[in-house]
């Protein structure tokens, strides 16, 4: 069975959530059987998750049952969700019982209901699914991008093995999970900790909610995984002055930490017998591809470290040739079993096989020092990482285009999304549409007015000329 879940004692607690609900390992396996009996053959499902015990149960059990879930936020903007349903036509949709079905996604018959979620059939016909395809994640959770990452079963096994190896996870672990289930790093926490037989502490509470702190302390979490913004909150909450003896591992991913904040936590961990581990990953590599071992947290501060166990990092030049010497700078590439099969943009793509064969150009420009440690220097792709959320600029542009009648383009840096418009009068409409769809604070969205957009002869926007 996937992750050898059937080898773990059935009555062991697998998940405990901040709402007081829990499940044991046997529950996940039994739910897998329930789902298999309720649906007609291997099917495409949307699972709209909240961060609770039921969410983990449904995500894991749907994969175990041989169905293919697209894992989404239960509070995805209805228009974006309807768009995804239109493109992929899932045969089933699973959502928390408290979330009402919208007309666009069908009001089908309920075929199973348990752990606070219900599974409905939509009436859509069977879908060609590649035999190795295990699950799907959106490339950008916040913009509900219709472009999906196709994962295979072996990615789950490999990612769980690599991550549980370098974090040295055991069944004694009680990781606190605030990252969403539909976010690759959150999902990889689930895979790696279940493989280890650990007990996942999952919460939907905001880190600025008193209940979050109560949960962390009462349940004696042993590790915390966050994005840079999570650590800004911990810092603001005077985390380093709290007495949290159980918490021995702090890990960070999802973008670069501000240097001072990184050093503050690295020193705090060194002085208090805790481990501080920076990681690097992408959904395309089933989350983590690099990690900075804790003994280098200070001497190599700012580095994403070295390849995860069983993986390999490399650099290549503009011509696509590998750069073997160090120090060097180039596009960082990763090879390993956790590299996903490719993307899907249509329903037919779900039948496609592995297009990457274990090799992933990351689209990130990295510097490798003389000791072989990697540092991210920049990005080749069209996306930003704001508060740890990957924001696809092309999707943002589509959202703006639907809200305005003038020309528009989106650019930005990792702390600011810039919208370029050719009409001052439409700035508010553009910003409003983005605030609603992308759920970012309005002050990180900046609108700038330009007479006309720079374009090449073919009419393509020249983003490099916008700044």
């Amino acid at each position, binding site marked *: 069975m996937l992750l050898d879940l059937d080898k773990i004692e059935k009555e062991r607690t697998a998940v405990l959530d901040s709402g007081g609900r829990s499940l044991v390992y046997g529950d996940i396996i039994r739910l897998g059987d329930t789902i298999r009996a309720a649906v007609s053959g291997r099917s495409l499902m949307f699972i709209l998750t909240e961060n609770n015990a039921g969410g983990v149960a449904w995500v894991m059990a749907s994969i175990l049952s041989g169905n293919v879930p697209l894992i989404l936020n239960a509070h995805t903007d209805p228009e974006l969700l309807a768009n995804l349903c239109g493109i992929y036509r899932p045969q089933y949709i699973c959502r928390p019982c408290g979330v009402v079905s919208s007309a666009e996604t069908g009001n089908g018959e309920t075929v199973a209901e348990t752990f606070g979620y219900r599974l409905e059939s939509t009436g859509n016909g069977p879908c060609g699914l590649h035999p190795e395809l295990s699950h799907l994640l959106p490339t950008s959770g916040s913009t509900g991008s219709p472009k999906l990452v196709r994962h295979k079963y072996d990615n789950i096994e490999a990612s769980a093995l690599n991550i549980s190896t370098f974090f040295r996870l055991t069944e004694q672990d009680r990781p606190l999970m605030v990252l969403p289930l539909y976010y690759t790093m959150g999902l990889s926490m689930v895979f790696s900790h279940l493989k280890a037989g650990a007990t996942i502490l999952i919460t939907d509470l905001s*880190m600025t909610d008193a209940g979050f702190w109560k949960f962390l302390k009462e349940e004696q979490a042993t590790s915390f995984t966050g994005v840079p*913004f999570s650590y800004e909150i911990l810092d603001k909450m005077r985390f380093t002055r709290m007495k949290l003896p159980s918490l021995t591992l702090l890990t960070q991913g999802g973008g670069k930490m501000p240097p001072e904040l990184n050093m503050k936590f690295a020193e705090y961990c060194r002085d208090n017998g805790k481990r501080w581990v920076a990681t690097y990953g992408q959904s395309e590599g089933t989350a983590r591809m690099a990690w900075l071992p804790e003994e280098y947290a200070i001497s190599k501060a700012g580095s994403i470290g070295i390849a995860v166990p069983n993986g390999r990092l490399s650099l290549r030049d503009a011509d696509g040739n590998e750069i073997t010497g160090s120090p060097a700078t180039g596009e960082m590439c990763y090879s390993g079993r956790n590299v996903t099969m490719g993307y899907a943009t249509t329903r037919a793509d779900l039948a496609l096989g592995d297009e990457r064969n274990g090799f992933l150009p990351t689209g990130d420009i990295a510097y490798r020092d003389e000791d072989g440690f990697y540092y991210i220097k920049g990005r080749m792709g069209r996306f930003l990482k704001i508060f740890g959320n990957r924001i696809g600029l092309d999707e943002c542009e589509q959202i703006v285009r639907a809200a305005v009648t003038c020309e528009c383009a989106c650019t930005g840096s990792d702390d600011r999304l810039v919208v370029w418009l050719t009409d001052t009068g439409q700035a508010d409409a553009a910003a409003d549409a983005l*605030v609603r769809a992308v759920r970012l604070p309005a002050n990180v969205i900046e609108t700038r007015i330009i007479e006309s957009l720079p374009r090449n002869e073919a009419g393509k926007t020249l983003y490099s000329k916008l700044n």
Partner: protein
Amino acid sequence: MSNIEIYNGIFTEVFGVSADALGASFSKENNDQWDSVHQLSLVSLAEDRFDIMLDPEDILGFTSYEKGIEIIRNQGVEF
């Protein structure tokens, strides 16, 4: 600019709403955009604009338009 105008300006910046949308009913409970990112943005801007420093309890307690005023008032800022 009066303190209440400064305060309202912070909400406008963070939530992109106009001042007339603000009031007793503007809270975390009634606004599903209000997550930790928004809450910390409110707190950070309030600290900057009013030159104050909020405690962890105040940061956790800053869950509505009205509670925010109360918290800032406790720091000696008059509205």
